[in-house]
């Protein structure tokens, strides 16, 4: 028998004022191929969530839309300013806020100019192009030999009433002896709004937040577009991945990667 227990507190803060607060807890047992779920309370988990939320509150910026989520004591803070957001933790909130405040939302039209994926943002591209197909047991396409992607997959669920699914736990992109040249005429991808992978069409969609543009490409096109990479993996500030309506945080890391444009 497999047992899963969860407690979660989430709070929405708008410009420094509490707007919403939810407590959720529950337990699921798998017996005879069925899941029996109820909102049973585990006091220790609830207390861990309360403590984690308390620790985060002093760091809430007063000029932003902020969502605090503590799940079994692990806490994340999603901060949105001017339509651009990051997902951070207590450990990294200062440096991630600095990044968020340093970028400006400008719109770019699709362009053939190469893309330089900064701040670990290439992890989002490869989350969609490699991670999701692996979750779905879809065979890989041919990726550059210098590319390494560590994305362990486990059965995970967002809540006690959800069916566990094969989901990534993290995405760590690295490179071994990759070629690298930073083109002068390029677009710097600084933050990514979201992405998707459709197994029906094998198409990856990436919504870049800064600068603002969207592109779609097949996995083979993404693989062919990878030109090079440099340095160690950098932590990307925030990937909350949603599949089948279940939102889960996926730790994401990637070096600076250069791709062709996807115009």
């Amino acid at each position, binding site marked *: 028998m497999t047992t899963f227990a969860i407690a979660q507190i989430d709070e929405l803060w708008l410009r420094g004022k*509490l*707007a*919403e*607060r*939810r*407590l*959720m*807890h*529950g337990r699921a047992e798998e017996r005879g*191929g*069925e*899941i*029996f*779920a*109820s*909102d049973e*309370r585990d006091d220790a988990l609830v207390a861990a969530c309360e403590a984690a939320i308390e620790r985060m509150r002093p760091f809430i910026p007063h000029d932003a839309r902020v969502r605090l989520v503590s799940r079994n004591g692990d806490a994340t803070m999603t901060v949105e300013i001017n339509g651009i957001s990051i997902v951070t933790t207590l450990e990294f909130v200062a440096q991630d806020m600095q990044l968020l405040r340093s970028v400006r939302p400008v719109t770019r039209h699709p362009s053939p100019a190469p893309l330089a994926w900064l701040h670990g943002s290439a992890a989002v591209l490869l989350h969609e192009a490699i991670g999701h197909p692996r979750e779905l047991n879809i065979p890989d396409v041919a990726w550059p030999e210098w590319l390494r992607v560590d994305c362990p997959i486990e059965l995970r669920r967002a809540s*006690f*009433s959800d*069916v566990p699914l094969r989901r990534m736990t993290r995405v760590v992109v690295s490179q071994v002896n990759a070629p690298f040249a930073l083109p002068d005429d390029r677009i710097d991808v600084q933050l990514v709004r979201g992405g998707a992978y459709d197994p*029906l*069409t094998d198409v990856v969609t990436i919504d870049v937040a800064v600068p603002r543009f969207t592109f779609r490409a097949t996995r083979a096109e993404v693989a062919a577009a990878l030109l090079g990479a440099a340095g160690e993996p950098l932590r990307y500030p925030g990937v909350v991945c949603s599949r089948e309506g279940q939102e889960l945080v996926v730790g994401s890391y990637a070096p600076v990667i250069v791709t062709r444009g996807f115009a």
Partner: protein
Amino acid sequence: MIYRKWGRVVRWENGTLVRVEEAGEAWEENGVFFARPIAHGVIPSASEGPPADVVAVAEGILRCAQDDTEIERVIVTHGVALHQYGDVRWQDETRRVHVALIRKPWRVLVDDFDVASVASALARCEGERDFAHLLDVPCAKEQMPGGRDGYGRPIEHRRVEGEPPNFYRPSYRVRPVRQWMNVRAIPSATTQAAPKVLALVDGGKALVDDGGRVFVTPLRPDRLL
């Protein structure tokens, strides 16, 4: 005023049967929305029986796969809930299906129990043809009476215009939002023969039957109910 909900759901989700029991309450205080679980006590009993009907519906849907038409997703739910807002108490029972059928390159979404007829039509689909101009008929809409909204108010017959009088509360954890409910188009004009829309297709399209021939056509999403 506090809203309370006690609920029980049996859900068949892509091969896994899930039984969920939960109860919770929500309230608003100085504009702040709060929600938390509460003791069960009075969970309604309408769906206490075996989930055989949920499983039977799901298995029936799985049998709709044929030739190059695959079933990508099947979710069948049967739930019963008791609601209370102030002195008003009401109960509802819901039966829903959500199915995604695949026939490359199309993904057809079905939220209706008659999956078999859509699957059969999809298998006969001849390709894409643009009927959007025929389907793009402006129509008035009305809210049909029935049930209660998220604050326990009766949902009454209204023409859909202006601000919705009712609030939708999909879960006790979600702050209610104004929304039209039980909406349908008001038949108001005669137009030339148009194909019959059978189901939505991913990407802003629809599966249509045009005199016995089946096609996929683009749709204007703002024309959807």
